[in-house]
């Protein structure tokens, strides 16, 4: 029977099949961070277990780190304690640890690919739902809970029923100012936040084939926001060029052997999916969200939908608009904003900073806007400096912060104040996600940049 890309990677990692139950599923690469790993290590200790393959686990601190003055001790004692726990646990069990201040430190889903830890055909997990990012390389990558982190540490396996398969095709050419983030937000707005629950997605079609690795990572990153466990894209020349010579990528003959194997990772002709959806690139415009889940997005020139046109609960919908301080039928264009956040595992890569700079170049940040520009890693930060992007954004009145998850989940001090509106390049606009009472408008780096210089929601195509 013809196999999909997903079948090939999944089936080759099943250690044991349990009748009427999940598969025992082997994990090639495991990322850990300070927030979801401490209790897993505690469990390990309580049961007197060891880490089975420490060389397959990689630790980085990102969720709960400051994005200024990283050379100083972390002020919040609880945060400092979590960082210390990650360091101590990593040292105790021989796990590579890129803590705060390490030159390779950064957001787990940015530093993994950057260093060649991620590879095509791999199975990758982390106690973080945006692990789906790594699917951009043709890997099966998904988020797990802390109990499962403990399983991976102790046995390198988790127990998972094989998900159903969905293929999402987007064909054609994207218009001016339409980015991978818009493609993802568009798909989520069509599927809703639960439309792909129970499925693993393969993205196919010209739009993804023509996308850079950074763009593919943005798309796969957001798979979880439509409920999918993960999403993946078949590896191709773009993938191999990105990975070649990365610090931990295979070298020499091992590289050639790996590429030969990776080239087989494609969905075969005739392979079937449980569900297949097709969209047209020309239907997608720059997107923005107006509500409190990532499915509540519209093309930036559209109005907020009527409650009657929404599938599902009207009460939930109205509660959401009420929280946002918006009305049905409002236009999003021209809405005043207070904060802009550029960063996160969704849009904290070099291309995102290039896109932001392309709009703000020669303009000035709006006076009333507070902007937080947070690179995904030190490597991204270095490139921002090398490519002259730092000069552009500095001249435009912006300040570059230090790497971390930052205001995406606001565990550190980067919190949007109650009632304030933030155009954010991150992944979730849930109530209070960016700080208690904060109101988030999810969008691309271009839309964020346009809002940052005008102070209101603005169509970036007018500024390009």
């Amino acid at each position: 029977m013809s196999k999909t890309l997903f079948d090939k990677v999944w089936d080759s990692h099943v250690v044991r099949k349990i009748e009427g139950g999940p598969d025992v599923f082997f994990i090639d690469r495991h990322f850990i961070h300070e927030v979801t790993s401490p209790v897993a290590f505690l469990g390990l200790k309580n049961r007197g277990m060891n880490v089975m393959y420490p060389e397959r686990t990689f630790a980085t601190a990102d969720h709960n780190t400051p994005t200024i003055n990283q050379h100083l001790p972390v002020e919040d004692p609880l945060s400092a304690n979590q960082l210390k726990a990650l360091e101590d646990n990593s040292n105790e069990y021989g796990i590579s640890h890129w803590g705060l201040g390490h030159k390779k430190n950064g957001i787990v889903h940015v530093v993994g690919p950057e260093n060649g830890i991620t590879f095509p055909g791999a199975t990758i997990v982390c106690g973080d739902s945006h692990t789906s990012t790594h699917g951009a390389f043709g890997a099966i990558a998904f988020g797990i809970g802390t109990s499962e982190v403990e399983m991976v540490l102790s046995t390198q396996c988790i127990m998972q029923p094989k998900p159903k398969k969905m293929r999402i095709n987007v064909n054609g050419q994207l218009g001016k100012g339409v980015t991978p983030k818009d493609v993802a937000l568009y798909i989520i707005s069509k599927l809703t936040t639960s439309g792909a629950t129970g499925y693993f997605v393969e993205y196919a079609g010209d739009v993804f084939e023509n996308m850079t690795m950074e763009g593919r990572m943005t798309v796969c990153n957001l798979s979880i926001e439509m409920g999918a466990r993960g999403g993946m894209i078949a590896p191709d020349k773009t993938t191999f060029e990105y990975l070649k010579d990365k610090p931990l990528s295979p070298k020499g003959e091992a590289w050639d052997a790996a590429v030969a194997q990776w080239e087989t990772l494609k969905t075969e002709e005739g392979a079937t999916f449980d569900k297949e959806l097709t969209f047209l690139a020309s239907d997608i415009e720059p997107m923005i969200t107006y509500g409190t889940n990532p499915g509540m997005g519209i093309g930036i020139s559209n109005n907020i939908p009527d409650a009657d046109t929404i599938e599902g609960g009207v009460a939930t919908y109205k509660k959401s608009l009420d929280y946002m301080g918006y009305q049905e039928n409002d236009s999003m264009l021209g809405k005043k904003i207070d904060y802009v956040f550029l960063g996160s595992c969704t849009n904290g890569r070099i291309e995102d900073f290039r896109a932001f700079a392309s709009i703000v170049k020669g303009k000035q940040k709006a006076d009333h806007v507070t902007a937080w520009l947070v690179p995904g890693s030190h490597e991204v930060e270095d490139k921002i400096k090398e490519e002259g992007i730092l000069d552009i954004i500095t001249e435009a009145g912006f300040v570059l912060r230090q790497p971390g998850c930052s205001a995406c989940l606001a565990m550190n001090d980067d919190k949007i104040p109650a009632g304030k509106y933030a155009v954010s390049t991150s992944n979730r606009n849930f109530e209070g996600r960016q700080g208690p009472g904060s109101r988030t408008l999810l969008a691309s780096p271009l839309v964020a940049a346009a809002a940052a210089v005008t102070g209101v929601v603005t169509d970036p195509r007018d500024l390009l």
Partner: protein
Amino acid sequence: MAYDKFNILTSTAVPLPLENVDTDQIIPARFLKATERKGFGDNLFRDWRYNGDDTPKEDFVLNNPIYSGKILVGGKNFGSGSSREHAAWAVYDYGFRCVVSSFFADIFKNNCLNIGVLPVQVSPEFSEQIFNAIYEDANTEIEVNLQEQTITIKSTGAQESFDINSYKKENMLNGFDDIDYLQNMKGEIETFANGLML
């Protein structure tokens, strides 16, 4: 950490008929700073439950003394968003042993099963019946029978069966977890790992 056995749970229930309840609502990120699994129940639904000055919000169901019990009944797409197991811990620590919804987000459901909280998925119609029964009489008891895979509204006798895979069911009936299983097959895992290229 193996957990308590789950067999038959008969309890009153707490209704939360909102859709898309995400794990940031169940437990906001700023309460994830602990390095031990303790006290998460205090911050369950923190920002819906308390005002900024920590006074309780009167209109939130957990602050309404007429509703209590070990079963939480949520709306469609319960537990979406972040993979934080802390959300399941908070539900457990508060005292719930079962969550009922017409649709669960994947990772939350998994996390519940891994710590001994039973996620029971019912039809939208049955979900509606449960909400109606609770709103009619807050003392309505719901019976969840894992062995039989049934959920019953005691006052009306309405019953529906629910799905759970047989492996997880055995685990919950016996209080075993996946680590107990995996620990017993390390040799097989090692052989598998030895055959991998990378």
